[in-house]
């Protein structure tokens, strides 16, 4: 039943990264973000700009600071230094309102095990005091989650929970969607649905932030690449600029090249 759902989505002409109209309006800008955990400098003076209608992918080897950067932008990690603005306004350490406009899909989310999917969605709605009709339920339909919503979460499979995760990230029509290894736990059909949803959101001028180790996913979704190496940005620019800089015409080769020669 999901296969037919996909056809509905892909029937619409959805722009791929190469054809997306690149708007320049930034939704989130972070500058000079530094963070150390004890002796370890996890982020060093990182700048990142997320533009509307663009997916920015943060890539880098394991331990390069990708997750810490995302968590800093969301306020889960308190940066030691740095400055964040969201849609033109400064984000202070006590500000939480801007997060109402961010949809976050973590690598693996565990909602309270004994709640049902419907209760989790109601909880997220209660937190934002959002009305029922402002909600984007499309992923729930496309993933065919409706029959799963009344079961306690601990009875659902990992993939189904990850679908619920994805659906909840898009639920409130966010201005910024943050996807941390989004398709890691999803089957190919569901990944396809999610990729189409990301494309559709970009067409509506949503900004995207993505981390992934899957090159085909980066290729399919990313407009811009921010390359982190030991907590430092060693490349920021479009995918084609990255390929030029590395002298490689394939993205996987270009990324591998940067990982082995970060200062080239």
């Amino acid at each position, binding site marked *: 039943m999901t296969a037919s759902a996909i056809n509905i989505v892909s029937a619409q002409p959805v722009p791929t990264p190469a054809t997306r109209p690149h708007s320049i309006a930034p939704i989130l800008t972070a500058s000079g973000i530094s963070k150390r955990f004890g002796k370890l400098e996890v982020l060093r003076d990182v700048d990142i700009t997320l533009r509307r209608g663009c997916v920015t992918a943060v890539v880098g080897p394991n331990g390069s600071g990708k997750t810490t950067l995302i968590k800093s932008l969301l306020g*889960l990690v308190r940066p030691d230094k740095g400055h964040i603005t969201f849609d033109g306004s400064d984000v202070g350490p006590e500000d*939480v309102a801007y*997060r*109402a406009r961010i949809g976050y899909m*973590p690598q693996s989310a565990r*909602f309270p095990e004994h*709640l049902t999917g419907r209760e989790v969605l109601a*909880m*997220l709605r*209660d937190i934002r005091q959002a009305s029922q009709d402002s909600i984007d339920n499309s992923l729930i339909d496309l993933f065919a989650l409706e029959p799963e919503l009344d079961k306690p979460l601990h009875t659902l499979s990992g993939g189904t929970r990850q679908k619920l995760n994805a659906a909840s990230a898009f639920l409130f029509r966010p201005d910024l969607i943050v996807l941390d290894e989004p398709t890691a736990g999803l089957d190919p059909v569901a990944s396809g649905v999610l990729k189409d949803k990301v494309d559709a959101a970009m067409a509506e001028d949503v900004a995207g932030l993505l981390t992934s180790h899957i090159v085909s996913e980066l290729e399919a979704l990313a407009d811009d690449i921010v390359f982190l190496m030991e907590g430092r940005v060693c490349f920021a620019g479009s995918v084609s600029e990255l390929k030029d800089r590395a002298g490689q015409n394939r993205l996987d080769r270009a990324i591998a090249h940067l990982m082995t020669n970060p200062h080239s």
Partner: protein
Amino acid sequence: MSTLTTGPAFRLLNYELRDVVRSKWAIGYAIFFLLITDAFFRFSGGGEQVVLSLINVVLILIPLVSLVFGVGYLYNAREFTELMLAQPVRRRDLFLALYGGLVLPLALGFVLGVTLPFAWHGAAAVHAMPLVKLLIAGVLLTASFLAIAILLAVRFDDRVKGLGAALFIWLFLAVVYDGIVLLIAYTFSTYPLETPMLLLTALNPISLARVLLLLSVDVAALLGYTGAAFEKFFGNGIGSVLALSALLLWALIPLFLAYRRFVRKDF
């Protein structure tokens, strides 16, 4: 009050409570107190003896369950905590919801589990005073050891360390501490020990609760020669209020420390 019942912390608490209650831990806990209180009524004499028997259960079990269940629940809720903090939720509200979601079911489970058998054995009214003191002490111990649990869960990212610290604290306060106090009393038996003993008692919530409860059932003589000092100090109204306040501080201080850490923590 209106912000408390409609505010974001309360809205979150709603879902927290559902989750904890459905986990059946809290219900099992209530049923345990129900069965054991009922059994005490059947196998021992009157209400007074039941309270006396329950005191030991309360002093040993409430700290243990509050610590272990609290720490375990909070480590399980770690990813949920992260997810909530990515929502427009203030850390203060999430903290209160997490703590409230633990305190309310466990305290309520204990209160109902003990009170119901008292009611159906017709002893609730007759032994109202010792029963109420038992309930207050139990609730305060629950609040205090859950506050310590949340402090440990926020302090240690590694759940093995957190659980280990919880068990160590329980073993120390529930078992080892009395031994140390006895040793001090024995070693310095030629000195006037009333004030140091009072201080040592105040430094352990379990000792505080024990003294409060034993005095309430008129067995101060069992406390040995310092019993007289306790009787003099805790036996009157002001002493009881002071002891209760000290027990309350044992809930508030760890809770405040945990809150400060939670608000500044990197998740």
